[in-house]
Each structure stands twice: as C-alpha cells, then as structure tokens.
C-alpha cells in the first residue's frame, strides 16, 4: 500500500509527522482522513508545533504554512464510504471509538483484504461509541495491543472515584488541575463533571485553559454523528457538548481565590500551560492534580504517578514542593485484552498481527489468540517483515447453462428417525481453457460445442433374460415383480415403471420381443425366455450392472 496514507485519528502520535512527511519529505500521494480528524488535526499540529518550538525551543520540523498546505491535500472521508483509490486499491473506514474521528481502515487489493485497527475502543464511553465493524473476510487483521493483558471491569467505580476526588477538593476550597490533551479525554471528563455539577448543584467554575479545548468542543458539537448513541439521542434537546458550567480561563485566574476546576493542555505535564499552573498550585495541600491516562517516562506527570514525591524537578532546574493531592484517573480509550479478543473472534481473519504495546504482554496475547482462536498471530519487531498468504481467486466466465444447473436444488430425503431433507447440490461443470483466452466454465453438455466437436455417446447395452417362458405371460406383472426385487436389494433407487418397461436413472429396460436381438449374447431364443432389453449410460455403469445382476437372480 506504499503510495497511500490513511490517518486514523488525530492524536499526536498519529498525525504528528504528517506535515513533515508531505511538505518536507515530498510525499505527494493521496492522504485520507475522517472528517473529524481532518478538522481537528490542524489544531493539534499547530499546538504541537508551538509547544515544540516556542516553549521548548527545539528546532521546528515544519511551519504553520506547512501544516496548512498539508491539510489542503487531505481528502476527508466518511464512515463506511468506500473509496476506490486506484484500480486495485479500495479502502473503507469503520468507527473505532478511541477519539473523535478515529477509524479502523479496511483495505482491499485485488482479492486480498486487511483491516488495520489503529487505536480503538470496544466499549462505549461517555461521549464516544464502541468500535463498530462489519463481518468481513480478511486475510490479515493488524490490531493495536496497548493493553494486551489488562482486563478492565466496569468504568463506573472509577468515574465515581474521580468525581468524588474532585468534589472533595473543591468543597474544601481547593483548586483541581486536570492536565489533558485537547481531544477526547478532556471532553469525556468535562461531560462527567458538567453532569455531576448539575446533579449536585455545584456552582464552582470549570475552566478550559486555552482556546484550543474550547474550539475542540465546537467541533464536537458539529460532529455529533461521530459520537456515542447516547449523545446523539440527547443532542436534539440539548447538545451535551454545550457545557453549562464551563468558562474560559484567564491567566490572571491562576491566583484568584476560591475553588475551581481547570482543564489545561498539554497532558502529562510535560511543558506549556499545564506545567505553569502546576508550579503555582502544587504547593497547596488543598489542591488536586488529576492525571488522566498514560504519562511518558521523564515527564512530571510520570513522576507524580510513580510515587508520592514531595518535590519535583521542573525541566529548567527549578524545584517545586508537591503538597497537593494526586489522583490518577484510570480509564483509557484503548481497548483491553478482552476487546482485542472479541474483535479478532468477530472478524475471524486468517492472520493477526499485533502492534503497539509492551512485548511480554503482547506475547501472552499472541499465545491466547493462537491457542483459543486458532489463528496464526505475529508480533513483529520494528523493521521486521511478516509475510502472510493472501486470498486470490481464479476468475472464469460461466455459461448460463452452468449457472442454471447450479441453481436447481438437489434434495435428498433420508428417513432415519426423522425425515431429513438435505440439499446436496454441487456445482458440476467443466472448466475449459483455450490458449490465450479467458477460462470458461460450461455445463458438461456444452463442452463439445465449445471445443467444436461432436458428441459421441458411449453406452452399455444388454438384453437380459429375466424369466423362463411360462404360463402367465403378463408384462405388467413381470415389470412389477422386477421392480420390487430391485428396490429390495437397492434401497433408495427411484424406479419408474411403465407397462412393459422400467427405468432407474439412465438405466432403461424394456421387454424385448424380437426373435434375435443384437444385444443378446446367449443364443437363447425368445420362445424359451422373456428378455428385458437394457441400456444405460457410462455414468450409471455400476448401477446398471447391479440391476442386471438382480434380474439374473430372478431367472
């Protein structure tokens, strides 16, 4: 798929390098993003650039114009919209949960199909739905496995803990700082708080630090169709992203008296505004820092979560006393092990590749997938190549007669204890390939025509003596008698009787009155015995002989 790029969600670890890729590296193939991702990633990119350059003083990888130019090249796609990228490649996006606009990507080249999940979430959270995908025929499923061994219980106790921690803090007159990324987590927690504030009738202000998160809210409001069912239903009467208690934060409010809740970017307390606020608020034991999600090692957020430090080194060498309370919000928008297993089971792909996560737990999950679901699973290291067999179909044109013959059912009735009817139709045809022409499937009756040949019917014949000439010569009785004999010995044979003939499949026998029949081998004259002149096709070779043997016994 080397020439095609699909961005699955607008977290920094997914779009972070895109402008660099397109504007600096010179990639000029198509770029696809979901609508929300396209709307939100410029914000994220710009924020990222600012943090990198303006605050940390690193050399910039790309500029604001790079971002703008890059986004112009992006083609926005909707869920389930099927896009024919070129003649061979077809892509389709499925809802992935995780963050607004996150999608799983289904890609099909020729007959081979894969799904790349990106980050996904198999449970509905406060504002986003669970990942949703059709049952597809896949050669390969590439799944994230950030939490390859974790199995999470219900979210409600953890939500309650968080709310109680924040409530306790503000009730005591403290300030609660929630450092978070602009997208996803902030909205989820804020919905939680806003709702709680309504119910408990709390008047403490909730602030959003920069315009960034407020603006992100705006997008959330417009992109209702990408949120959870619950939100969608509610939004007719009240848009849940119209937070009632949320206000914009002003720098001067850092030192304002009284309790408040502040959402500040970036998460993990790695730089920027959230860190600045932390510096001021951390020394007070009344205050609270609630850390949602994962923090990268080395960040202040990670240090706070790791233990209970009394002082923390900021990046520029200053130390801060930490006397405030620390609360870890333990819900993540990544799927847990059960989710990965459920998805894998649902899709039943021919192969699974796990990416993203810690090696030991990924190996554990791999074992589980191989043993429980019996699907080959790979955990490639970075740079390692995995090859899997892909589906290909041999294509051929089918004649109408063949298709028609396939569509007529072939019922078999078996009567053991209950009557069972089974449709045992098989597509029975002949594949003909002429050099430098397309393969063709025809019905067996058409083969000779395709080959420009004349049919040559090969059949067997035998005029069989069935009864000594005797007293009551009644053809009808004779046929009846034979037919009972045949059905006695060959169960299941369908015998059609007529006045002086009988038929089983292609086997036909008729009372022969000729004095000398071609098909008679013995020289027994018609006056000595009654003959049944039989012929049958090669297809019923065995059947024919069986009947002959039965009839000979009658003699």
């Amino acid at each position, binding site marked *: 798929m080397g020439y095609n790029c699909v961005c699955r969600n607008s977290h920094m670890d997914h779009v972070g390098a895109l402008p660099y890729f397109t504007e600096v590296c010179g990639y000029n193939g198509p770029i696809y993003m979901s609508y929300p991702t396209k*709307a939100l990633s410029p914000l994220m990119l710009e924020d990222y650039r600012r943090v990198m350059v303006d605050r940390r003083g690193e050399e910039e990888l790309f500029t604001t114009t790079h971002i703008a130019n890059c*986004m112009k090249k992006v083609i*926005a796609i909707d*869920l*389930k*919209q*099927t*896009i024919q990228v070129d003649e061979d490649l077809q892509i*389709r996006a499925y809802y992935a949960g995780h963050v607004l606009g996150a999608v799983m990507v289904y890609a099909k080249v020729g007959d081979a199909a894969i799904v790349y999940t990106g980050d996904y979430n198999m449970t509905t959270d406060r504002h986003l739905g669970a990942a949703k995908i059709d049952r597809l025929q896949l050669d390969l499923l590439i799944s994230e496995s950030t939490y390859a061994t974790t199995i999470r219980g219900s979210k409600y106790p953890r939500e309650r803990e968080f709310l109680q921690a924040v409530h306790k803090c503000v009730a005591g007159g403290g300030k609660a700082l929630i450092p978070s990324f602009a997208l996803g987590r902030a909205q989820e927690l804020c919905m939680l708080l806003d709702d709680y504030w309504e119910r408990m009738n709390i008047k403490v202000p909730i602030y959003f630090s920069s315009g960034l998160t407020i*603006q992100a809210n*705006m*997008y959330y409001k*417009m*992109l209702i*169709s990408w949120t959870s069912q619950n939100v969608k239903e509610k*939004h*007719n009467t009240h*848009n849940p992203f119209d937070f009632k208690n949320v206000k914009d934060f002003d720098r001067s409010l850092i030192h304002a008296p009284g309790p408040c809740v502040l959402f500040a970017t970036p998460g993990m307390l790695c730089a920027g505004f959230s860190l600045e606020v932390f510096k001021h608020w951390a020394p007070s034991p009344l205050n609270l820092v609630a850390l949602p999600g994962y923090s990268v090692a080395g960040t202040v957020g990670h240090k706070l979560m790791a233990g209970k430090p009394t002082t923390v080194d900021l990046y520029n060498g200053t130390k801060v006393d930490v006397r405030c309370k620390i609360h870890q919000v333990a819900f993540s928008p990544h799927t847990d092990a059960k989710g990965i297993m459920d998805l894998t089971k649902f899709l039943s792909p021919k192969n699974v590749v796990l990416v993203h996560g810690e090696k030991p737990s990924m190996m554990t999950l791999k074992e589980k997938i191989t043993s429980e679901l019996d699907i080959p699973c790979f955990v490639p290291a970075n740079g390692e190549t995995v090859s899997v067999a892909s589906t*290909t*179909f041999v*294509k*051929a*044109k*089918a*004649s*109408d007669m063949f*298709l028609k013959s396939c*569509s007529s059912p072939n019922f078999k009735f078996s009567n053991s204890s209950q009557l069972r009817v089974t449709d*045992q139709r*098989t*597509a*029975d*045809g*002949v*594949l*003909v*390939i002429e*050099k430098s022409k397309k393969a*063709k499937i025809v019905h*067996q009756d058409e*083969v*000779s025509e395709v*080959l420009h*040949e*004349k*049919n*040559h*019917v*090969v*059949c*067997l014949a*035998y005029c069989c003596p069935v009864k000594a000439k005797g007293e009551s010569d009644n053809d009808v009785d004779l046929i009846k008698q034979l037919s009972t004999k045949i059905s006695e010995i060959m169960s299941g044979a369908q015998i059609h009787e007529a006045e002086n003939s009988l038929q089983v499949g292609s086997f036909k026998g008729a009372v022969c009155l000729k004095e000398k029949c071609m*098909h008679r*081998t*013995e020289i027994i004259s018609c006056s000595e015995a009654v003959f049944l002149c039989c012929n049958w*096709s*090669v*297809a019923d*070779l065995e059947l024919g*002989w069986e009947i002959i043997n039965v009839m000979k016994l009658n003699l």
Partner: protein
Amino acid sequence: MLNLCGFRILIDCPLDLSAITIFSPVPYDVGFEASEYLSDVPLDAHNPIQKKQKLERQLTPADLVCAEPWYKTVKALHLWEASLIDIVLISNPMGLLGLPFLTQNPGFCAKIYMTEATAKIGQLMMQDLVSMHNEFRCFHGPGYSCFPGWIKDLDSEEVPASLKKVVFGESGDDLGSWMRLYSLDDIESCMKKVQAVKFAEEVCYNGTLIIKALSSGLDIGACNWLINGPNGSLSYMSSSICVSHHAKSFDFHGLKGTDVLIYSDLSCLQSAEVTENGCVSPDLDNNYLSTIRSDKKDDDLAASLLNTEDSLEEMEKLAFVCSCAAESADAGGSTLITITRIGIVLQLLELMSNSLESLSLKVPVFVISSVAEELLAYTNTIPEWLCEQRQEKLISGEPSFGHLKFIKDKKIHLFPAIHSPNLITSWQEPCIVFAPHWSLRLGPSVQLLQRWRGDPKSLLVLEGGLSSGLGLLPFRPIAMKILQCSFLSGIRLQKLPTLFSVLQQKIVLIPDAVNQRINLAEMKTSSILNYSENKTLRVPRIADNPSVEITTDLASKFSWKKLRHRENFGIARLKGELLMEDGKHRLVTGLEQEESSGKARPLRHWGSVAPESLLDALLKMGIKGSIEHSTRDNDTKDNSVIHIANPNRGLVETSEIGTAIIAEDENVASQIFQAIDGILDGI
C-alpha cells in the same frame, strides 16, 4: 419499479402534495367561510339551473372539499402486492413521504435503503405533516377509516373538471391512490424498517446486489443509486444538481461507466415549460451538441457540466427573494415564505439574516414549524453531507449554516406552532416568516396568509410549480404581492447530451416525456431506450457471461486433461459449491468433494471410434474380436460392429454419434469401455 436479478426494486415513494389543494384550509378567521360553504351545498344539489351555471363559472373557494384531507400517493402503488417488493430505495426526503403507506401493509417485508440524512430529514418532514394535519382533525372531528364521503360528492356532475382531474387523474383511475394520512406511530414503525447508509457506502442485498448511494446535489442527503449485480451494473439518476450550495454536489464520477443508466429526472420538464413561455432561449441546445461533436476530451466535458452558471443563477434568485423581502419589510409589510426544500430554506435563512443585518433593518425572522428547532439543529451537525464550501467551514471551526449565530443573537426565532405561548410576546410586524407548507393548505402558512392577504405591502414567496389558481383560491381576493420562484431542481435539458457522454453508459433509459423534448439521436456513445408509465421495458443484457471466482484451494484440486485432438485446450472437471457473495458468483470446495473425486470417470465423449484402432486396443488387453461392417439401418448412419469372442462373448456397435457396448460380463464391458475411452477425448 425495477426487476433486477429477480429482485423487485421500488425507487422512491413520494406523496403528491399538490393534490391536497383540493381541500379547503381550516378556516381560522371566523365560521364565515365554512357557513358560506355549507349553505352552498344544498342549493347546488337541488337546483339544476344553478348546476349548469356552476360548470361554466370560475372555481370558487366553495368548490374545495371541506373535509379531513386524504393524500395522494404514487399512482398504481396500490396495485402492487407489497409483499412482492424486495427492495425500496429512497433517493430524497420527499420520496420518503409516502413510505408509511407501504410499510403499513402487513405483507410488506422489503429492505428499505436511504441515506442517513434523508432518513432524518424525511422523518422530520413526515412528523411535521402529521402535526399540521392534526389541525384538520381537530376541526373536522375524529374521522372514520372507511371510504370518505367527499369522494362520492366529487363524483357528481356539478364538480368542476379541474378538480376532478386532480382527484381521479387524467384517465380516471387515480382514485385508488388516495389514502388517509398515517399517524406518528406509523412513521416510527416505518423508520424502524429503514437501513440508513452513508454516501458511497456499499451495502450488499442478499449477497447478490451491491447498492451504493451517491450524492445527487438536489438536497441534503439526496442521492442517486448505483446497483452492481453479477449480471452487470445499473445506475439510477434522480434529479441532480451539478453544483450545489448546500448539499454535497452531484457525484457523477461515481455513476460513470455502468452498463445501464436509468435517467429519471423529470424536473427538466418544468423548466422546458418555461422555455415555451419564452423565458429561456432554447437555442443553447444546439451549441451543446456541437461541442460534443468536436470530440472534446472527457475532462472538458466534465468541466462544462460543472460550470457555475446555473449555481450563480440560483444564488441570484435567492438574493432576489431576500431583496424583495427586505423591500417589503422596509415598506412595513411582512413576508411569508412557504418553501419546503430544506436546503433552500437554510440558504435563504442565512442570506436573509445577513442582508437584513447589512441593511441594518430590525426585522425579526420567524421559523414556525413543529420540527424547526430539531431540523435547524440537525443541519449543523452533518458536515459530511454538505457541499465543499460548507465543509471548509467545518475545518475552520465555523458552523455549517449561519442560522446558528442568528438564533443565538435572537434575530431568528423558532416556534413549534403559531399558537406557541412565547410567540405572541416576541411577535412583531413587519416580520419575515418561514412557515410550511407550500401547498398552502396545511400548517401555519394558512393562518398567516389569511391575516396578510389583504395587505398590499406584504409579500408571499411561493415555490414554483404550485398551480396558483387552485392553491390560492381560498385566499382570494389577494392584495399581497406574490413572488413565485422556481429553483433549479435537476439537470437542465441542454446539459443532458454532455452528461450522457461523460457518463458513458452502454444503454440509457429515458422517460418518454423527456425524450419528446430533446433529440438525443445524435449521441453515438450509447443506445437510448425510452420508458413510459405503466409499461414494462425489457433491457437486454449487455455484459457477456457473468464471471465466477474460484477459490485457490478448489482450483488446486483440478485434474487437468490435455486433449488429443486439440492442443490449445485444457479442460478440467469442476465440482464445488456455487455461492453468491458480495454480488459475485464464487465457487468453493463443496462438502462431498473428497467422496466424489474417487470415482472420476469421463462422462462425456466426443470424436469417433475407428473400429480398427479399437480392435488393436482391445487386443492389447487380451480381448479378441472381429469387425463386421453393416449398414443395417437404412439411415445415413454407418454402423460398424465388432464381435468379441474371447474371453467372453460381446459386441461393440459404433457409429458417428455413439458407441454401445454389449456384453454379459461386467469386466469385459469395463475393459471395452477403457479401450474406447483411450481412443476418444472425454471429460
């Protein structure tokens, strides 16, 4: 109605809402009109002289039926057995309005597809219709579900012909399509049966047909359909607009190259009527044709389709409406806008508010509809369904439609009904009111029209196509100004040749009525067939034999045979299970594959058996025989007979068309068969 691969597909199920103009509106003012009407009826019935007079005179409001209205659905829909429909495709919100009539039917079990936006907007429109209709119900009292009395009344002679035409249709057989309106519950149960899709989402029906909705640009969520089956592909083109300022534009690239195109955009008929009136020059036609003859490249053609002339014209029309409204507001008159096409309403709202602001006119804008709030909120949450400019707004973080801001600023007021309690407090005239319904029989527009009809400063904005005679009848005499505007609701006739040559279909189906208006005979690219109402048209299959995909594991099991006489051919017997998946035939390994592969024996043979070589072959097997030529049959057949004596008696009879093995002994027979099989080619 379409029959494809044995599946019956119904496309669109609208209501003929113009037909309800035969009903008189609920009289709000006083009992004045109603009593007048009542006194009229007995007079008519008993006085034959008056009857005659009535036939000759103009229609009066009294002629309108004063009863709970019924609704006219698709002609001849009631003649279809609902349970025989397999698929229903709805291409725009208007096409949804009649659907509950169909789904009410207990036998109905078809799969219904429409876009998400169509489903939502259509549902809101139906709910609005029902709530507006309830006013009638309140007025006329609870109805009875049996045959309504008014139809009987209408059948009598004194009823004017124009009314009769609406009720009974041109040929007088439309009566069956009148239905009593559904309820909210019916709508809900109908919508439960709907499968909503996104643009370009592929849905697979029964494993056979792959159905895809592509934007048509007419309205938000409106679409054309692409249906792919094993026997070819078909596209259905409803009214489409190339460049739209609200909905996502006409996606004609997606329709390209299918085998068959059903063109069912009848909107051009209306515009053609305008040309007859001399408003638009019809000469354009030839110009377009000549451009095609000059064999322009595809892209150029596509570009000419996308030329913005039409859309500019549309914008001008909207701007004109706005300026008229502003003018009358300036003069102290109010404006009533009864347009129901949601995209146009949204654009108008935006433009109107902007122009009022720029003119610094302090005129309130009211939107009165039971679903106004929900609808307007909804339209700002669906950027995926809108045109590119509005999608750009999403990227820059602005709402898709401007009304949001004005609602917040209290410049646009939304009310569910005209009797909403808050309406009076904020009501102020002059004002601009958006109110359904364009038929001028239902909803708040009736009341407002009755209020303003005498005011020459006021303005009524009507959607074109409403026969103003019947529509405005109950409100005459009217002093207020009337602006009838017809908005583009399809591809212009002149563009058809260009469109068809871009789409490059093998067969194009065009309604009779359209074909009469335009000469497409000069089109070389595709063959054009006409279809007409109530007639079945069989379209020949164009694609050659359908293709079948064979799984590799089945293909690897084939035992290939080289033919003795034809080296170019390779043949193999094929046994498996034929499935239908994703609209493709697929051959997979069947259940009894293993069992049957054991006793493989050629069953079909061709060529001929030379007696001599057969004798040789038999001799190698240790069977001796002798040849006897015989022409016993008097026919042209040339029979040869080989007598076999050793090891057992037997006979082989062979001719051009076949060979018979006659033997008493089973083993001998099968040996002979093997010998013959060795000589002939077979499978």
